[in-house]
């Protein structure tokens, strides 16, 4: 059984998340961003993460839009991919970083008693 997906993230050029149903925080998006992989996703995949379209991720409403985005990036020099992945990585680490999460949880636990 696969114990971690990290090697797949690190070996990939683009993380595609065509999510059209369900709700909730997409930890897979956070994981991809923290691994420094540019993300192409639907608005639903961005739920809770709130990456900014074009600047921090490629966001498309439907499959045809995603195909066009893949083609555009495939034919580009890759600078957009690098910039987008760096921005997403920075944002995700600053908002959802483990240190920040643990500090908040510790505060909440202490507050309750």
């Amino acid at each position: 059984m696969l114990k971690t997906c990290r090697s797949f993230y690190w070996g990939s050029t683009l993380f595609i998340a065509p999510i059209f149903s369900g709700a909730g925080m997409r930890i897979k998006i956070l994981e991809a961003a923290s691994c420094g992989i540019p993300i192409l996703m639907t608005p639903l995949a961005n739920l809770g993460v709130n990456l900014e379209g074009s600047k921090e991720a490629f966001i498309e409403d439907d499959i045809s839009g995603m195909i066009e985005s893949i083609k555009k990036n495939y034919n580009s020099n890759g600078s957009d991919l690098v910039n987008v992945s760096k921005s997403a990585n920075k944002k995700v680490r600053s908002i959802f970083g483990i240190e920040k999460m643990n500090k908040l949880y510790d505060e909440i636990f202490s507050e309750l008693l």
Partner: protein
Amino acid sequence: MKILHLQTELNLACGITRTISQIIKNSSKEFEHHLIALGGNGLSRFETINFNPKILNLNRFSLIGALKIYLFLLNYCKEHSIQIIHSHHRYFDTLVWFLKPVMKIKTITSVQSKVFGKKVFSYKADKLIACSKTIKNHFLINLNR
């Protein structure tokens, strides 16, 4: 301070499982963490941090299963002097709500998703932790919390 985490399943491809393991691994030493789940394939996440979750092989969807889980939790909390219960799933949030009248305990529920149904029985914890502003806004608008 003793904290009991509750999750339905601990799976490798599950962000909540990952989050729980990170809380246990990195939180302050003043907290003693306990974890109860109903199964899953992600126990290896906890082996790596030398932590043994308690796994209950009970069917949460049956009334008898739910009752058994409830009674187990009641006994476990008393036996281990649990002070805080942190539910990571709506199922346990509801179950723990029924524990409150019979024992002195503080409760937290982490909320990862938008929910619309079963409002009467949902999210009764003393403290709700929304995973994002989107979920927080959803709660404020739709559940008036």
